[in-house]
């Protein structure tokens, strides 16, 4: 009997009945939390920010950085590695740009001085140094990445030279 019921539910529902139970529990908790939001009298703003958070990430932020990445890579295709045997440089641009963008994404209210008014009132200081801090960190990231690339290029060319020497020796023998 139980077995039969289990199979019927699974066939109609599309998954194990436990799946249904877990999701019902999830929605019950969310519904209860939502009722608390209503009691707090902030449900309209909460709902807009909650759904807006998902939309902002999935349909704004992610496409934006994906397009930026595609653009960087297309530059890479037009300007492939400078000389024969040069290692690909794409990640030496991608990584510092990504990290710098990440820091801006987190700290933009300080860097772009959006929170200047409240910050000044609370902390007693100005938000003006943060733009400089962010630019400094960005500069260090790009410089470090360029240095790492230079080291890689040297190592690759040295390896190529050694290989060439080795072939020369062999041909001489």
């Amino acid at each position: 009997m139980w077995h039969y019921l289990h199979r019927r539910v699974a066939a109609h529902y599309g998954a194990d009945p436990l799946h249904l139970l877990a999701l019902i529990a999830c929605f019950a908790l969310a519904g209860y939390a939502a009722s608390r939001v209503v009691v707090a009298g902030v449900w309209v703003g909460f709902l807009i920010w909650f759904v807006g958070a998902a939309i902002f990430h999935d349909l704004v932020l992610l496409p934006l950085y994906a397009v930026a990445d595609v653009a960087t890579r297309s530059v890479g295709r037009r300007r492939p590695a400078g000389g024969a045997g040069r290692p690909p440089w794409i990640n030496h641009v991608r990584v510092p740009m990504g990290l710098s963008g990440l820091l801006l994404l987190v700290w933009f209210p300080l860097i772009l001085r959006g929170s200047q008014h409240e910050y000044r009132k609370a902390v007693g200081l100005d938000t003006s140094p943060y733009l400089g801090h962010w630019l400094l960190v960005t500069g260090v990231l790009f410089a470090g990445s360029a240095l790492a690339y230079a080291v890689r290029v040297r190592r690759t060319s040295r390896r190529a030279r050694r290989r060439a020497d080795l072939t020369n020796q062999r041909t001489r023998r």
Partner: protein
Amino acid sequence: MTSENTPAGGRTPRPSRSWRPRVPTLPEDPPPGPFRPEFWRSPIRGPWLTSVLGLILLAGVPIVAITGLLSYAAYNPWLPLNDLTPGKGLLGFYLFDWPTSPPWLYRLTQGTHVILGLTLLPVLLAKLWSVIPKLFAWPPVRSAAQALERASLLLLVGGAVFEFVTGILNIQLFYVFPFSFYPAHLYGAWIFLGALAVHVALKMPRVVSTLRTRGLRDLRTDLADTRPEPPDTSGLVSPDPAPPTISRRGLLAFAGGGALAIFALSVGQSIDGWLRRTALLAPHGRAYGTGPNDFQINKTAASVGVVAAQTGAAWRLEVMGPRPVRLSRADLLAMPLYTYALPIACVEGWSTQRDWTGVRLADLARLAGAAPGHTQVVVRSLQRGGVFSRVTLSATQVADPRSLLALRVGGADLSLDHGYPARIIVPNAPGVHNTKWVRMLEFSPETA
């Protein structure tokens, strides 16, 4: 998604065998763009990458959640005036009276909550990137089970981003959200955690089987040897993968590098000494100077309407209890003074330890005829408005010998911005409970 794109075969209604929630006008074939699997070309997307990112989040998010709930308990919300989420119902529970020992506990838990939360953001972004093709799965709904699960994913993704965004904006004092932070962040957390628990339960078998078959060899695989994961039913592996430009371990290192950058540039705001200067991108890593009063301020006197005229020679402390007394600052300085090194730790994650000198709250309770140990106190500030212009401290907090009405810090008189003429300092209490510019202490028998 318009019907113009409908291919010829899509319009014929198919006989339905069981319950089909599919909107009849949706074509069988996906419209061009992200709804087509071949739109997604990353060769490194797949169940292995998603599983590893998921496991990292699974290690970190519970710590952020638990420290967050501890912060809720740290406010002792069962005492009158302290509860910032009065409509919480079952969602705000506290199993214990917040202790005063060890005095650095809240410094540690709340610093962890904020800094670890920030540090996990790049991992969350990488995780969401790794599963984005699933958002555009076609047809959008295949069964009732899948429809419900997708709805729960809205709660999961919306909840995660909502919690990170509100937290990150709040610590920067960027109050652009149209609600009070406390209830929104608490209730949003419950929605997120419920959806997360179900998501983990549903996906864990796949994570385990993926890691069992594929192991961790991708952590040693460089770009030259990076291959797409074998085609499967997860909907993550691209059917038309582009040549790889980064390895899987490269992507993990990228996300880890982002985490490290955020961590290294913000953790200094929870540490004293020269390390504080490393917090270049954190709201409270700033240097004020070298004097005893030159440390982080969280509300200036000017911002809450406290002016020097109120705090001058005419200032009196009202101590209410069975034997009410009024005390001038000179009266307080004539009482036995004690000095303790105690941290002040803010809900926004920053903290600093200072040497505070003042009168024990327990001595003031005795002076007003109340018995420490069974006595709580309502502290009222000169500050105008704000939820923290008054607060209730528990009997445990009043009785602790290190709980002070502080008059000096680092050997100097408190500055106006640090609460002159007198402020509360209680070991292990959240910073906002260390009320500044105290004007009244009302001792009364403990209510709970």
